[in-house]
């Protein structure tokens, strides 16, 4: 077999010469290796690093908001600056923090959990990341320009976002940035769907998938089906702003309520896009540290599916005060109450998992249990909003702010923090110190509650959202003061968390393989996992596959040696080539977006007719993108083969242009 593979290699060598534009980068370290990477683990790392970076940006915005509101009639920020702060805080935390950190786990962990060597379309995956990066940059460019940052709220309600009311480029950048983030999310989600359905290891049936992988699948479907709504809404507002169409122009028959509907048709599934990955992470951590299988696995999976399904039928509960009429209001109120049922079912399943377990209170488990408690509080205040008459009172008040921070910080973020601690040993081979991890948990937990619990009362006392200051006689002074003290504590906690992570990355204690004695397949890998993930594709025999393997080692060893022979028979491990074109396409998109969103329409006296700097920039960027995509297609999805020694080290690379299987 070896001889055959070798002769094949020599025979194909002659036609390996390719034109220079089809340069195949092969750097394994350094800048080029990162720009051309198509390794799902590296892309996951890039997503995670960007998410954490923007978490600092969004956190500073949040602290400035809280400092402004600490005392009545404060003048730290002007009203205009305050508008920029809350708009960018919301947009950043949702699109540039929680979603990319979720995507980091999808990329890094999901293929390992299903026993795959990469995602289905590795170059598309790289393209998703670069498009995401461009979108994030476009969104934040305004801070460095005289136009300023976007300031119309993260929901961007028309007609506030039309040119009449927001003439500066800030809104153009917001529109363009969000569209790119949508493209990036949809491309990534399509990739994950195909990967989960089609690239599972032998024996990994759907009902043996780890719950985190299930939640990745549901989230991907939600992204694919909900992001088009906001993309169309953004295209409509963009047409209004650039070409003077009438979608939201009331004097010509436009209906601003349409924006609200399209936005929330996306916006509510988005809420589940933010929380389902968190639920998946929790469903991995609780069984590992409770030393029990997940209680009611099928029910957890199916309730995830019903949350995703019902999530498309509740969007108008964001619009109870718009006067939709009694029937619509009642229907959406009913659906909103119904969606609490599968969520509650999950909550009881997690409690059932803890019940009677031998709990090991390590840092990930602390965050996971914090999640259960805080997310439940957020869920309970959410149920209050389902009652339309009560919601009419709470709408636009700090009560709503308290609610969604309990589900987004106490829910999503706690789970993501838990996940970072949980998978850190696998990703980097080092373990976060228990003392500093637990300290950061308690400071974050206390700071979070001190910040957001008083907001329930502030809201019920009538304090409106998005107000940049208030008078001292409104009775809101104490609550706001404590909320700001809490926010500072929360900031300190997050700082401890981050410094601990960075310290651990460089100097932390090295760990053994599978330090938590976990259950899912990714822990069978050495840490950090090698480029090819699995030297031998595992065979899955049970739901908690690694747990099963650890108790059937003889069977495992025999299968492994059989499969190793099979792999060598196929010419070794197939690895896809790196590619620079996803990055070039991203550069083209960046130039085109700058043209569309930022460059001014030219003075008609100077540039008569169609051509001007705006059109030229856009066309140049578009052309770079088009050429990159064409070259991407021409270079093809070739790869090379790796041959491993029995101990897993690489014996040789076979660079004959083997077509991807």
């Amino acid at each position, binding site marked *: 077999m070896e001889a*055959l593979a070798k002769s*094949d290699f020599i025979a194909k060598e002659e036609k390996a010469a390719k034109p220079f534009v089809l340069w195949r980068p092969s750097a394994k370290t350094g800048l080029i290796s990162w720009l051309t990477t198509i390794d799902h683990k590296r892309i996951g790392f890039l997503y995670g690093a960007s998410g954490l970076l923007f978490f600092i940006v969004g956190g500073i915005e949040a602290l400035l908001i809280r400092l402004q509101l600490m005392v009545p009639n404060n003048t730290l920020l002007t009203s205009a600056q305050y508008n920029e702060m809350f708009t960018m805080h919301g947009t950043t935390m949702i699109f540039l923090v929680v979603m990319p950190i979720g995507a980091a786990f999808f990329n890094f962990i999901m293929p390992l959990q299903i026993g795959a060597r990469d995602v*289905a*379309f590795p170059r598309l995956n790289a393209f998703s990341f670069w498009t995401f990066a461009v979108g994030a940059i476009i969104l934040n460019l305004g801070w460095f320009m005289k136009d300023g940052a976007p300031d119309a709220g993260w929901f961007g309600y028309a007609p506030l976002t039309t040119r009449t009311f927001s003439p500066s480029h800030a809104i153009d950048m917001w529109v363009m940035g969000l569209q790119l983030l949508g493209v990036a999310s*949809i491309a990534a989600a*399509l*990739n994950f*769907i*195909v990967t989960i*359905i*089609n*690239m*599972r290891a032998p024996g*990994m049936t759907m009902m043996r998938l780890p719950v985190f992988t299930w939640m990745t699948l549901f989230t991907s479907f939600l992204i*694919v*089906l*909900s*992001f*088009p*709504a906001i*993309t*169309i*809404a953004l*295209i*409509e507002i963009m*047409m209004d702003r650039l*070409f*003077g*169409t*009438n*979608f939201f122009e009331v004097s*010509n*028959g*436009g*209906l601003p309520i*349409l924006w609200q509907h*399209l936005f929330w*048709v996306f916006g509510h599934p988005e809420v589940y896009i933010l929380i389902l990955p968190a639920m998946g992470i929790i469903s991995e951590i609780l069984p590992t540290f409770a030393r029990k299988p997940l209680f009611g696995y099928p029910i957890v999976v199916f309730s995830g599916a019903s949350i995703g399904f019902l999530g498309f039928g509740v969007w108008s509960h964001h619009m109870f005060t718009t006067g939709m009429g009694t029937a619509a209001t009642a229907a959406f109120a009913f659906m909103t109450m119904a969606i609490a049922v599968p969520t509650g079912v999950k909550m009881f399943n997690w409690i059932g998992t803890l019940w009677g377990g031998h709990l090991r209170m390590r840092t990930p488990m602390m965050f996971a249990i914090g999640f259960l408690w805080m997310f439940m509080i957020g869920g309970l205040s959410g149920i209050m909003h389902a009652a339309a008459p009560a919601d009419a009172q709470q709408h636009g008040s700090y009560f709503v702010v308290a609610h969604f921070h309990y589900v987004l910080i106490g829910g999503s973020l706690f789970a993501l923090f838990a996940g970072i601690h949980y998978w850190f040993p696998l990703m980097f081979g080092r373990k976060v110190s228990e003392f500093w991890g637990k300290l950061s948990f308690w400071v974050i937990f206390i700071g979070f509650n001190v910040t957001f619990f008083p907001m329930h009362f502030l809201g019920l006392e009538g304090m409106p959202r998005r107000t940049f200051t208030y008078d001292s006689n409104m009775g809101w002074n104490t609550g706001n003061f404590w909320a700001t003290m809490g926010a500072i504590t929360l900031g300190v906690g997050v700082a401890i968390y981050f410094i601990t992570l960075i310290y651990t990355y460089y100097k932390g204690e090295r760990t053994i393989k599978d330090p938590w004695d976990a259950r899912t397949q990714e822990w069978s890998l050495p840490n950090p996992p090698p480029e090819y993930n699995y030297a031998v594709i595992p065979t899955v025999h049970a739901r908690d596959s690694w747990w099963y393997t650890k108790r059937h080692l003889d069977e495992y060893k025999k299968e492994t040696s059989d499969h190793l022979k099979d792999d060598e028979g196929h010419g070794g491990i197939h690895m896809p080539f790196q590619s620079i074109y996803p990055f070039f396409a991203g550069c083209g998109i960046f130039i085109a977006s700058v043209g569309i969103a930022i460059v001014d329409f030219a003075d008609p006296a100077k540039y008569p007719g169609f051509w001007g700097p705006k059109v030229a920039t856009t066309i140049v960027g578009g052309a770079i993108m088009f050429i990159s995509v*064409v070259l991407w*297609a021409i270079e*093809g999805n070739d790869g090379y083969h790796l041959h491993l020694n029995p101990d897993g080290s690489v014996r040789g690379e076979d660079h004959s242009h083997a077509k991807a*299987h």
Partner: protein
Amino acid sequence: MTTAVATIDHHHDPTTTTGIPNKKLLMWAFLASDCMFFGCLISTHLIYRLHPPPGTPPAREVFSIELTSFSTFILLMSSLMMALAVNAIQKGNLKSLRWSLLTTIFFGCIFLGCQVFEFTNFVHEKHLTITNSILGTTFFTLTGTHGLHVLIGVIWLTGMLIYSFTGRLQEKDAIDVEMMGLYWHFVDIVWIVIFTAVYLLEYI
């Protein structure tokens, strides 16, 4: 070493878990997403149709149903040729593949030409522009987005036609043509919906 197999099974891919080729699954999932894109645009058109501001020209006076019916027929025939192209490559008949692809491209171009003519005619003769009425806004945005899909399809098909001459497109690559076919049929089906909801609805 299974390079020289006598027949290729075009309906089952042994390297994937489900046997469905990855590219086909990707295209189906993308089309689900594209349904939502067009769904939002068509909904926008239908909602605004119910609330015309005073002074909006009646759509029936603007449309030319004869021309649009013709271009619809041509687009449907292009779907037939696309299906023949998929069939041809699955049988390894490259000559037939090239003719089918060429005809599909030709029909796609006729459709685009009709649309360009229609747009120019509406703007210059019927005075319906994208800015002067809500009908113009939704009509041009919706049909323009569909035209963009057809254009992308034509470019993609042209690339395939070129590949069929350079040897990059052979029987084993039938899935690439099949994936393209899914896209093309989808764009056709969307046009049937648009033709019904935008044009025919005005004649009821």
